[in-house]
């Protein structure tokens, strides 16, 4: 054995353009889809309305799905109970908004936004707390077994839905949007609903905040590393169980926020609304790449746009558009658009 290390200084080579573009292809999917929409939709104003509507829907699904994809990626937990947090968030948020009727009914944007902020805060606290209890009582005993997770979280979902019936009754609740968020603004001849523009803004803020935390903080570093190899994160000195619980609580709270947004979008809430959205959420989480927040964001926007364009072009097509989209994307990228590396 020689002591002196031989010189083998590494050199960097420039990859071909196609190789360099490859990771960015999913990012290009959303603008490409918007351009395709522009080309196939005969009226420019309809295209603009549908695009904003699709982006708003996508953003709301992203807010709901982002927590779920992190929970799956980091904890390898398939949580069918995620829908319960959406419903609970919607009911808690709606209760607060109804209680703050004077603020929501006032023609003041500030008061309206304050009322929504109060509703969102209450919903996120309640669903975050529910997430903590759910993780401890229901999910923790079944770590490592997907089949048991599916069964037990489905059970948790049913219990949570029944709790909603007990607390709020079996009837659906109608919730009007705050005064200044009703109606639409006209831009380039297109009617753009004010609330949808707000939803796009909130979704963007959540995405940027999540990205900031994941990419620029030590906590984010631990979460990203934990998604790939939780055992090694522990061996480096970080208590991954605490991170698991934190992510589960944050994911549940985001579902609560999404629930409030969805409630104001639909203007009516039911106990099983979360369960109904979960089909879209699963599609988004799968096509985005399990565990990837960026993939989830692209997937959600894609789903929102495709659904809106398809419904306009051929209403019956909307029924299968998302499943068809999932099939097409998985044929293109079987691990999803932004696959997450997992340690063997």
């Amino acid at each position, binding site marked *: *054995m*020689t*002591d*002196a*290390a*031989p010189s*083998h*200084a*590494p*050199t*960097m080579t420039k990859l071909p353009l196609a190789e360099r573009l490859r990771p960015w292809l999913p990012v290009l999917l959303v603008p490409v889809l918007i351009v395709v929409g522009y080309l196939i939709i005969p009226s420019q104003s309809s295209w603009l309305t549908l695009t904003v509507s699709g982006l708003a829907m996508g953003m709301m699904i992203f807010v709901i799905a982002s927590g779920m994809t992190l929970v799956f990626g980091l904890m390898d937990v398939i949580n069918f109970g995620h829908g319960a947090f959406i419903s609970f968030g919607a009911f808690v948020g709606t209760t607060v908004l109804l209680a703050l009727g004077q603020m929501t009914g006032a023609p003041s944007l500030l008061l309206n936004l304050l009322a929504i902020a109060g509703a969102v805060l209450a919903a996120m606290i309640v669903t975050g707390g529910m997430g903590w209890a759910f993780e401890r009582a229901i999910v923790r005993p079944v770590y490592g077994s997907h089949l048991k997770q599916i069964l037990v979280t489905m059970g948790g979902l049913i219990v949570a839905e029944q709790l909603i019936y007990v607390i709020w009754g079996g009837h659906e609740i109608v919730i009007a949007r705050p005064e200044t968020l009703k109606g639409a603004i006209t831009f380039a001849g297109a009617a753009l609903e004010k609330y949808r523009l707000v939803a796009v803004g909130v979704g963007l803020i959540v995405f940027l905040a999540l990205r900031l935390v994941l990419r620029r903080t*030590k906590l984010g*570093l*631990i979460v*990203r*590393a934990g*998604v*790939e*190899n939780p*055992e*090694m*994160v*522990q*061996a*480096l*000195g*970080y*208590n*991954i*169980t605490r991170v698991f619980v934190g992510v589960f609580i944050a994911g549940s709270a985001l579902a609560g926020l999404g629930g409030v947004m969805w409630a104001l979008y639909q203007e009516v809430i039911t106990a099983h609304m979360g369960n109904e959205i979960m089909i879209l959420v699963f599609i988004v989480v799968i096509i985005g790449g399990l565990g990837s927040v960026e993939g989830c964001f692209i997937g959600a926007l894609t789903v929102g746009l495709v659904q809106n364009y398809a419904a306009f072009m051929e209403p019956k097509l909307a029924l299968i558009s998302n499943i068809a989209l999932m099939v097409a994307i998985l044929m293109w990228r079987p691990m999803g658009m932004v696959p*997450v*590396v997992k*340690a*063997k």
Partner: protein
Amino acid sequence: MSDPILRLKGVKTDIAQYHILHGVDLDVPRGAVTMLLGRNGAGKTTTLRTIMGLWKPHQGEILLDGAHINGLNPAQIARRGIGFVPEDMGIFSDLTVEENIRLAALSGQPIPERLDWIFEAFPALRTFWKSAAGTLSGGQKQMLSVARAVVEDRELYLIDEPSKGLAPAIVATLAKALKDLKNRGASILMVEQNFSLAKALGDHVAVMDDGKIIWTGSMKELASDTGLQERLMGLKMETA
């Protein structure tokens, strides 16, 4: 021998229905390199993982600096001062080289002096500092894995087969860095199949077979006795 930095007393570990460690007794001296040698399946990796808390022993005691660490989780054990380089390197492929190193610095940011030493030992890590660790070659990943363990001073380093599957040139680079670490007074427990590397680095040796320590002694003693090597490890040795 002065008080060992690490002591294992009658450690038994099962994995699923298999009994892997059958009562390991081992003292790891302070400020020296102890080589854990033995045939494949002897229980070397299981011993390191058991010390690290990644597998729980069902019997026996593990003492780090005189304090019990069995029963603690891996994070607590790491924070007691153990740096770990696993057999599979444990690199986070989606993170950059910089992020891998930063994550290992429990105090926050890597110490500049330590970083300079890492770059001197492994120039490739400076070149690929901002690249995703998944794009590194096998040798560079191993360098990163070692660099991550040594980014801060630790009481003890557990290193599992750093030369596995690497070209001789890369092994030489790793050997130089590990020798440098040893010269800084580090305590190291290292599993290694490459006897040349083990000879070059080791001060003490513990040989395992069938989940037990079957021989301990100095590397000088083992290296000079080919008959002993053949008896303990089935090595038909190269000349010294």
